[in-house]
């Protein structure tokens, strides 16, 4: 997909600009992951393609365009089905990477 430069000078895709201009949720158009959190105890990541890193203190998920790093303690992957990963535990921070 052809990338464009937006007003802020950042590179954005055609889908990004469509979703922004038509006010459509980005995860519906741009292949972004849909992330939901319940406090700091549970996080569900929809659109998870796999696990990149699994350690005691953090889990890194591949969501296609982004990587989501969930840090915390007692982290448990409660389920991982149909592209949706549910992680339970004491979440301290979430980091995103390209």
């Amino acid at each position, binding site marked *: 997909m052809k990338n464009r430069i937006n007003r802020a000078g950042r590179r954005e895709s055609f889908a990004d600009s469509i979703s922004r201009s038509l006010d459509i949720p980005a995860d519906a158009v741009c292949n972004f992951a849909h992330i939901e959190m319940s406090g700091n105890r549970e996080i569900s990541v929809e659109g998870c393609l796999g*696990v990149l*890193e*699994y350690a*005691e203190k953090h*889990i890194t998920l591949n969501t296609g365009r982004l990587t989501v790093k969930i840090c915390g303690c007692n982290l*448990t*992957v*409660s389920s*991982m089905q149909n592209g949706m990963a549910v992680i339970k535990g004491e979440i301290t921070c979430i980091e995103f990477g390209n």
Partner: protein
Amino acid sequence: MLFIKLLKYLRGYVTLTATGGFPERFINLCKRCGIELSELRCSSGEITAKTDLVSYKKIRYAAKNSGMRVRILGKKGLPFILKRNSHRIGVPIGVAVCIVLTVILAGRIWRVEVTGNSAVSQAEIISVFEKLGVRKGVASDSVDIGRTEIEAMRHLPEMAWLNVNISGSTAVIEVRESVERPETDAPDPAPSNLVASRDGQIVTLRPFSGTREQKVGNSVLKGDLLISGITVNKDQSVSFCKAEGYVTARTVHNIETQAKSKVNGKIIADERKTGIIHFLVFDIPLGRASGGFRQRFSLNINSVELPVGFTFIRKESLRKTETALSKDRAVLLAELEFSAACSEEFRGIEIERVILRNDNGAVKGEFTCLENIGEEKLMEIEEISG
């Protein structure tokens, strides 16, 4: 969550641990192969997870390609329990019999209740419905409720309305009894006199209807006329009525009980115990079950009587005996008899004065009382023609 746990338990699940190799690759391969891993934990490169039986059989490929060694930590669930007990043939047979019995028995009536009755007894209503087919052990579907209600109304004319509701294994018979119309045209009472029922001295004399024949202070004998049912009119003609009134008199009652040296009684010579087991519609006697004292015990759950119970039967054969009494006991017995006789004699009578004597074991009492001595006595009237 509880439901999911129940489903997992029914399907059976394996707790596994995987060590060595690449945990991330193992998880991704599992995901690609459709292996459902739940409660996945990772600590120091060791993965602990749960998976169902079918998925566990496919896990070898993922483990081999990620260099992980998989070990089973535990197996839980119904399939494992069934497999463990598969050599016990009685268990599946028992379960099957239990299911079949439950299915068959659930569609039958095991309890009949009657509500709303007062004049007509419950037993009478139940016996009528038993004749019409609503009884214990009958299939609920086979009861024609509409026809049964109409037939029951014919057999129970005292009922104004009745209804049968079958709820589960209970048939509830709701009834409303009809109220009899009171008789308004009461027949004329037969003419009668009021006579003395005992000897005594009149204290109060209040005639309500009829003619006063005695005065207060008069002494009367038993059978003397107190209030006459004959009334003389102003034209010297005579009319008859039912004499009514309130006549109290001072009377004397003498009660005496004698002390006995011997007393006759009965003792238990032989006692036999037996019983009947009740199960559904069957009564299984454990011995000769006729006569005797019976006590039924039924199994109740949440105040619902189940068709399972036991009747305890006790049969006693009695033998006559004669027992000699000591003097003290004889006097005590005489006093007890005296007390019982007094309570019977003076019911509704006011006692004014009592004189008690104990004479050689005999208990004697003289009671001066106030009591209603009026007693109705029908008149014999003979009509003379001409």
